[in-house]
């Protein structure tokens, strides 16, 4: 697939309809995670599905729109700050998916690590600017407190805090995305196939 194909995006009805569906999936993922009391967020399943189906641009839009809509309508302005993180997760997962890194299970794990790394790189500065370095996750913040007490610099502690939370979260998210994508019927995935060509008579 050429570089042009990787970023090719169609703004037809199918792609636009995908965005709210993915935002809904993010919400459901987060809700199930809290109902089952899992110590993970699992709120980017939809963004990753959108990225895998629609490509990097749709993925990025799904991610940013997700946080902006929740932030602006449910008053949860904490998610608003992380719109940037979601945007880049969607974008990079989209690139990975278009270059064939969602085709098999081991490759999906590579995508998960990329998504986790992106989340860490973007979120850590945001955590430091807005929440004085904490993430709001119990396990991560315990590590933050411990490393701070050991005398580690703020940036490093905040990084450890993020790594503990984000890497497991993204690995589980991408495993779920992989399972779901395999279960989708072809008549749906064919709508979003980037390499198809329209042939004219």
């Amino acid at each position, binding site marked *: 697939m050429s570089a042009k194909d990787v970023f090719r995006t169609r*703004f*037809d*009805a*199918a792609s*636009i*309809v*995908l*965005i*709210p*569906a993915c*935002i*809904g*999936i993010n*919400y*459901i*993922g987060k*809700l*199930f*995670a809290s*109902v*089952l*009391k*899992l*110590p993970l967020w*699992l709120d980017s*399943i*939809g963004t990753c*599905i959108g990225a895998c189906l629609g490509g990097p641009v749709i993925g990025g839009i799904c991610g940013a*729109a997700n946080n902006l*809509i929740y*932030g*602006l*309508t*449910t*008053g949860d*302005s*904490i998610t*608003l700050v992380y719109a940037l993180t979601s945007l880049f997760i969607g974008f990079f997962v989209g690139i990975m998916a278009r270059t064939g890194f969602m085709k098999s299970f081991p490759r999906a794990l590579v995508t998960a690590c990329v998504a986790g790394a992106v989340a860490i790189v973007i979120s850590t500065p945001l955590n430091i600017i*807005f*929440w*004085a*370095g*904490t993430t*709001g996750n119990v396990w991560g*913040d315990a590590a*933050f*407190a411990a490393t*701070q*007490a050991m*005398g580690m610099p703020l940036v490093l502690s905040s990084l450890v805090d993020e790594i503990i939370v984000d890497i497991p979260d993204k690995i589980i998210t991408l495993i*779920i995305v992989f*399972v*779901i994508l395999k*279960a*989708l*019927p072809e*008549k*749906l995935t064919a*709508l979003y196939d980037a390499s198809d060509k329209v042939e004219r008579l």
Partner: protein
Amino acid sequence: MKSISLYSDNGTWLCRVHPFTKVMYAVAAISVPLILGSLWAFAAAIIADLALLASGKVLRRARALIVFSFTIIATIFIVRSLFGQEGSEIMFSIGPVNVYREGFMIALRTGLNILSMLLAFAVLVLTTNPQDLSTEMERHGFSPRFSYVISSVFNIIPQMMGTMSTISDAQRSRGMETEGSLITRMKAFIPLITPVVTSSLITTRERAMALDARGFGAKIKRTYPETREKHRGDTAATVILALIVVLSILIKAALWLS
């Protein structure tokens, strides 16, 4: 069906104010203290937010919104002020616990910032119909696709919640355990979420076809069935708020240069 939006029309003046004015207010109330950086500016913004919420009769509902942030603020206070770096000044001690001044001030600032953000958004969120906001944005030049995404989210989520409870019941009646150890709960996640997600993705195909059949991709100018009645002073308020933001930038720049 339960809506995820927190808006309800209680007939006060704040609900009739144009959505853009409230967006501008939220922008100003959040950015001015951040630009000026003084604790007094945060306090002033929080007092302004509270006054608006009170006059819009939504203070009680705003309380529910900010309560959850107290755990986050408390975490920040504990983590930052009790686990200070070596050599930082001790402000006071409670028994064996030392409270560090530098960390405490950072935590105070962050806490006030969180509160000011939440309250400013509460003013917007509790009194603005999201449908109203997206229609107005569309009318002022935003893409109709964009406002479709917003209004569609509000329809899709209650629908998915319905599917979710149906599937939870179905899986539970087959004997799936949703409570117990972490492993049990982890294992329950996939059979719960996969059917909800797959079914909602499959319906997108039909929705796309239905939209296409109704001219969703049409490129002509659209018309709108209802018109908003103008609220007095919307333009004036927006201009004043914008001026306050500009003024605070100027003050900060003047302080920085001197």
